[in-house]
């Protein structure tokens, strides 16, 4: 390779604009004058105490380490089952399921719209039969399981419940998380089926059903991750996510539930991006804001209702296709921010994710990264070690204030649902995404290996995972067999009953469970519900 002239960079301020990743101006040093007394007093508090700025537990990771939970899923249920076993074998402590696109949008693998996408970026899931294969041999009463699914979350979850029933596992012993967060879909990820109102009804139906029957389950994971990936700044991620959370609370209360009945099972999911301190501050601010609003605005009495417990994933959008090994370093920094921000569970991205689905090798390194942080670095021994840092406390307050001003704007628009219908959060994101791209183009922000320090004629030296095209044909033929072998009278009866109930105000979850037990497919359920609820169309906002 030809030698390039050596790069000399005299001052940081000549190559970056010295703002945070989100464009926030920062001073060159922070001191006591930059922090409000209250931010070191009552607003800070102690770990495990209101307002929980410093963490949800008193002893934090000494008492309970975060759950190392790598998101996995590809191909058929049997293939993903093998990846799950691989991960558990290497010391992972919880499972997290990625579904393929047809599943996420509510369609069956043999639907024409699914062509080419079956098993591509997650596991294909059509019915209870796939659920049985996916968790075959995995002790669901002992391993906590997370499922990343939103629009059809309720009927994928009832397939999961039906599987537990068949295996004789009491529903009350199931632990895990359902993402089930539709608002961020309209804002960022765009995986919806119906208009907002019926989706929110399904969500509150699940809150009520689980409070009674699956009490250890986190019924929702209110997610900022995707909002951030779609281009939001740290403050926008924080504000829109928490506002989504408030909206679910308000809907559940309006549906007649008391806040302390469901709020303890609400959980969150944030992004850990590359700006180390800004991310830590964002996570600390999230806990403080949530606690304050739950206690003061929504009148929750149970301290568990005040807790903002969250999963963190390192930022997929920070990864580069160039010099992919360097992504290991980025992910390590981001994961450390997640831990210092006090996460309850963590996913670390694999180095090859800007190129393809992660290979076994890359997944293992990502998991090992968490283990190094947990067991070698020493950071887990002390709760909130950055508490009281002038810079971190100042940033925490700034993010909180910025989020509060977004809350006010959104309330002015009539709340989050009307704001989404008007495209407000969507436009904010698009603008931020474009501004960041401009900053990169104009060299005000840097990406190592992309905007600077590039390697000419780079040759990739990491293995790339490929999904065999036979996955789709196999999945489709299995589905054909199922449609012929199941009790089709029971299938039609339960679908009819579902449709009837959907037209009433009755809780839909028991009906979805009946459908799942008799092997109704995901797409069959989706189509029945569309008859009642209609379909949502894209609102593209710029």
């Amino acid at each position: 390779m030809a030698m390039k002239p050596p790069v000399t960079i005299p001052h940081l301020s000549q190559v970056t604009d010295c703002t945070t990743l989100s464009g926030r101006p920062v001073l060159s040093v922070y001191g006591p004058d930059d922090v409000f007394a209250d931010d070191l007093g009552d607003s800070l508090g102690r770990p495990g105490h209101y307002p929980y700025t410093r963490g949800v537990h008193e002893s934090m990771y000494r008492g309970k380490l975060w759950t190392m939970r790598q998101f996995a899923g590809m191909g058929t249920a049997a293939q993903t089952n093998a990846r799950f076993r691989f991960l558990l074998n290497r010391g992972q402590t919880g499972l997290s399921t990625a579904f393929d696109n047809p599943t996420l949008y509510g369609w069956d693998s043999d639907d024409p719209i699914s062509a080419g996408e079956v098993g591509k970026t997650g596991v294909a899931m059509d019915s209870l039969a796939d659920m049985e294969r996916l968790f075959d041999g995995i002790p669901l009463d002992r391993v906590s399981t997370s499922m990343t699914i939103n629009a059809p979350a309720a009927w994928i979850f009832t397939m999961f419940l039906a599987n537990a029933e068949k295996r004789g596992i009491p529903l009350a012993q199931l632990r895990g998380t359902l993402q089930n967060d539709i608002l961020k879909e309209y804002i960022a990820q765009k995986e919806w089926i119906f208009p907002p109102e019926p989706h929110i009804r399904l969500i509150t139906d699940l809150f009520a059903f689980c409070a009674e029957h699956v009490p250890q389950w986190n019924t929702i994971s209110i997610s900022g991750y995707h909002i951030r990936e779609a281009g939001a700044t740290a403050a926008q991620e924080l504000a829109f996510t928490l506002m989504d959370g408030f909206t679910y609370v308000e809907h559940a209360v309006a549906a007649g539930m008391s806040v302390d009945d469901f709020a303890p099972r609400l959980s969150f999911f944030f992004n850990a991006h590359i700006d180390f301190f800004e991310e830590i501050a964002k996570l600390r601010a999230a806990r403080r804001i949530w606690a304050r609003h739950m206690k003061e605005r929504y009148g929750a009495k149970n301290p568990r209702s005040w807790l903002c417990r969250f999963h963190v994933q390192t930022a997929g959008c920070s990864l580069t296709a160039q010099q992919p090994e360097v992504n290991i370093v980025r992910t390590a920094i981001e994961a450390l921010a997640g831990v210092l921000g006090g996460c309850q569970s963590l996913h670390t991205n694999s180095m090859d994710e800007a190129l393809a689905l992660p290979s076994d090798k890359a997944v293992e390194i990502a998991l090992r990264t968490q283990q190094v942080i947990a067991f070698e670095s020493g950071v887990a021994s002390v709760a909130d070690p950055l508490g009281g840092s002038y810079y971190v406390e100042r940033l925490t307050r700034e993010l909180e204030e910025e989020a509060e001003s977004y809350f006010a704007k959104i309330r002015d628009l009539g709340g989050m649902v009307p704001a989404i219908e008007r495209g407000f959060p969507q436009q904010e994101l698009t603008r931020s995404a474009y501004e960041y791209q401009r900053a990169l183009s104009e060299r005000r922000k840097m990406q190592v290996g992309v905007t600077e320090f590039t390697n000419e004629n780079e040759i990739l030296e990491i293995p790339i995972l490929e999904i065999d095209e036979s996955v789709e044909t196999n999945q489709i033929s299995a589905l054909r067999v199922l449609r012929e072998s199941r009790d089709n009278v029971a299938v039609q009866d339960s679908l009819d009953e579902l449709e009837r109930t959907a037209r009433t105000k009755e809780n839909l979850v028991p009906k979805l469970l009946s459908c799942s037990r008799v092997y109704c497919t995901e797409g069959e359920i989706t189509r029945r519900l569309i008859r009642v609820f209609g379909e949502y169309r894209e609102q593209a906002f710029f």
Partner: protein
Amino acid sequence: MAESMRSSRGPSLTPQLWERFLGGERRACAQVITKVENDPDAVPEIRDRLSGRLGRAIRIGITGPPGVGKSTLTSALARGLADGGNRVGIVAVDPSSPFTGGAFMGDRIRMDALVGDDRVFMRSLASRAGQGGLAPSTAGVADVLEAFGMDRILIETVGVGQAELDVMACADIVVLVLQPSTGDAIQSLKSGIIEAADVVVVNKADLPGVEMLLQSLRFAFSLGAGRPGTNATPILATSAQASEGIGELVAELESQASDLVDSGRHREMRRARLENEIRRAIQTHLWASLERAVGASAKIRRHAEELTLSGGSPYPFIRRACAATQVCQTKEEAWQ
């Protein structure tokens, strides 16, 4: 035809292209539109080719402030009109950036219900140098669509929130779209567009505030707003998203269309437009020959500069120029 009137840009209009166009090939229609859009010099030849195929279609302008649902409504209308047996052309105009010349055209997002519908042909146009909510080539593009066999042509203007009177020059029927938010209605009443409207549509009737807007519009019209010399302008409510009220709107448009035809007003509008087209083409030609012969624009600019300083009258120059221009010898026979 003079050298200057032949196409100088892009591929020429081959006989094969015309054959495909007459054979109803959509791609050929799209290519002819591109030519009209980008190459003014090709327009005369294209107009020649379209002869005998124009004069029948009804052109419907859809105008109104940004975001009121013009595209969504246009899509629903196109379907309604097509269901009534019409072939429908759509021209949707979006603004060009005055700085970069680029344009973002998002109207198709709202028209996904028309995907695969062979009865409809939809084309997006950037406004480019056009003012008043249309592209300079809008009328020419509508001509091509008509000659391609479209019975109804929907022209969606840029949502500029200002008087878009250009659309009147180009459309037989003007639909003004508003939404329940008083600001828009008051703006429109002020701007005079309301007088250009043949139908006023209050879209998004599923949102609160419709009744109030309908009432204030009815009140305004009772005070004499509306196109002078016509009967009361109809005011309809629609929810384009839910396809509600579309049937009524289609019926209203079709009834206005047959009135236009039956009363002879359609022919009259067409005559006026042709008159304009001829006059403008000749003016353009004359001007071009003056430019070529003496560099007219530059000379006028210089005179104006001198007059600004001297404070003199422009007429000595005008008289001299006009007298000299009379040497242009026109034979009346040629004007028959």
